[in-house]
């Protein structure tokens, strides 16, 4: 069937709209890159749009030679690695238990997890709890309160349930216990879903800032997101710039731009390659959850 004239007009308009969506989505990224390599004067006078004006590498150099920035960047790496490792172990263990249909009390165990998707204690009780457990100014304040994401848990549970039961029956015949089956049979078959979960957790811990903001009192403990937040809020301009406040204000705009770029860089670099994992993970969770 040949498309009608009206439909051809629609297709053309659709192309224009989708092009606009792409342009509007990407524009802030291009703009921030242009600002990162522009002279402060060009930025302040509103000349920087798509392309650097007064090109220079002074600001990237300044940010990268700020020791506090690197300390905070390293903190983010450490927090992300530790938190992701703990999260993936806890999530895998619990998801595996929940996937065992014959287990007595399984419904209760599922309910305990799912209920927390709809009820949560709220900011103040959580804050009071973390503080009275003495977790302030430790990495555990960032890691433990968010160790299991119920959404990720349900995705893994759905995956484990989709594995053929014969495999594990065969493992039982071979004399493998639960631990052995999980470790030698199930996990090697689950590499794809584990990779997806690792990505989910790693990105969310990399991006998180509020726990660090709330529970860390000393700036050498901040994750880089809090460093950036303080830059944005003007609370501090980083240790190297605090000496001369006029200069600090002057270079603030391009420093913000460079810090933003460096903070999102790891996510941007891996994003094109791992995007499809995220999509498939979300769909698995939505269908089963």
């Amino acid at each position: 069937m040949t498309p009608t004239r009206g439909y051809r007009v629609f297709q053309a308009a659709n192309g224009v709209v989708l092009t606009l969506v792409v342009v509007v989505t990407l524009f802030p990224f291009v703009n921030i890159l242009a600002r990162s390599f522009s002279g402060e004067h060009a930025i302040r006078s509103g000349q920087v749009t798509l392309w650097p004006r007064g090109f220079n590498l002074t600001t990237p150099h300044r940010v990268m030679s700020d020791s506090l920035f690197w300390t905070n960047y390293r903190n983010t790496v450490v927090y992300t690695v530790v938190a992701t490792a703990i999260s993936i172990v806890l999530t895998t263990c619990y998801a595996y238990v929940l996937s065992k249909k014959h287990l007595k009390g399984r419904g209760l165990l599922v309910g305990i997890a799912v209920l927390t998707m709809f009820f949560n204690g709220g900011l103040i009780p959580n804050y009071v709890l973390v503080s009275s457990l003495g977790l302030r100014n430790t990495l555990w304040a960032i890691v433990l309160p968010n160790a299991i994401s119920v959404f990720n848990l349900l995705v893994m549970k759905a995956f484990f349930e989709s594995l053929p039961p014969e495999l594990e029956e065969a493992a039982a015949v071979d004399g493998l216990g639960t631990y052995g089956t999980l470790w030698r049979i199930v996990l090697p078959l689950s590499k794809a879903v584990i990779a997806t979960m690792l990505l989910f957790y790693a990105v969310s811990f990399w991006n998180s800032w509020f726990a660090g903001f709330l529970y860390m009192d000393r700036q050498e403990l901040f994750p880089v997101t809090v460093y950036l937040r303080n830059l944005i809020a003007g609370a501090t301009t980083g240790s190297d710039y605090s000496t001369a406040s006029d200069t600090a204000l002057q270079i603030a705009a391009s420093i913000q731009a460079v810090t933003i770029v460096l903070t999102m860089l790891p996510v941007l670099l891996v994003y094109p390659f791992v995007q499809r994992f995220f999509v498939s993970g979300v769909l698995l969770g939505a269908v089963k959850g």
Partner: protein
Amino acid sequence: MRTWRRAVRRDWQLYSLAVLPLLFFVVFRYLPMLGNVIAFRRYQPGGDLFGEYWVGLRYFRMFLTDPTFWQVFGNTVIIGALTLLFCFPLPVVLALLLNEVRRRWLKGFVQTVSYLPHFLSIVVVAGLVLQTVSVDGVINQGLTAVGHDAVAFIQDPGWFRTIYVSSEIWQTVGWGTILYLAALTTIDDDLYQQAKVDGANRWRQTWHVTLPGIRPTMVTLLILNIGTFLAVGFEKVLLLYNPLTYPTADVISTYLYRVGVVSGSFSYAAAIGLFESVIGLTLVLSANWLSRRTVGSSLW
């Protein structure tokens, strides 16, 4: 009892794997729920987790007669309503438009680009927003190019909601299409063939086949959206607002953050938080009930 003993004997290894995760849920999810009793009790920082002694509804009476509370309540409702109004339907529209793209690489490219903002830290998003609307930013460049004076958007309470909702659209619309696009692929092609035989054009096919096909997904997401109506992007507001824009920007969650964490009135803030959760729960339950009665699909 006997059966439990047998179950434990047979499956103790499985149960042992559940111990640490259960500990997590008890300590970091259920203890804070119980911790809400401090809304009814006097709490001293550093003192007992569950407060010192009962004070009844004192803190509830306090915030219900607090004019600031009612102002932030109003702001929350307005921002929540605007977010729902724009961020719920736009992903449906974008998904339908993407669905009409015949070249697969083009569709894939638009999807990849539009998902990207979802993966950014909220701090990065706030940074991008602030740069875009700053006095030397792109929007003001456009304004001055047409002879208009530059506007200090971020200091102007009149602009806060526009900035907030626009950035929310920028960040969420692309990712929001995923579930709809998946639902669109499950629609039976025979239905379209039948509609064509009946003489339906593309528009009528969309109206009578496509939209009913994604209706369950829409209902589910709408209920979820309504449930989180009052929990408007706390972190984003916290990053974007400033004392000058409090009159329009301050919402319940940011207010209780300042009252509780910053000023140390934990019980007072916990009372506000509890009130907010109860309203949220009521909203999600009523939305669920309403959709079961009217369109026949619901979350549970």
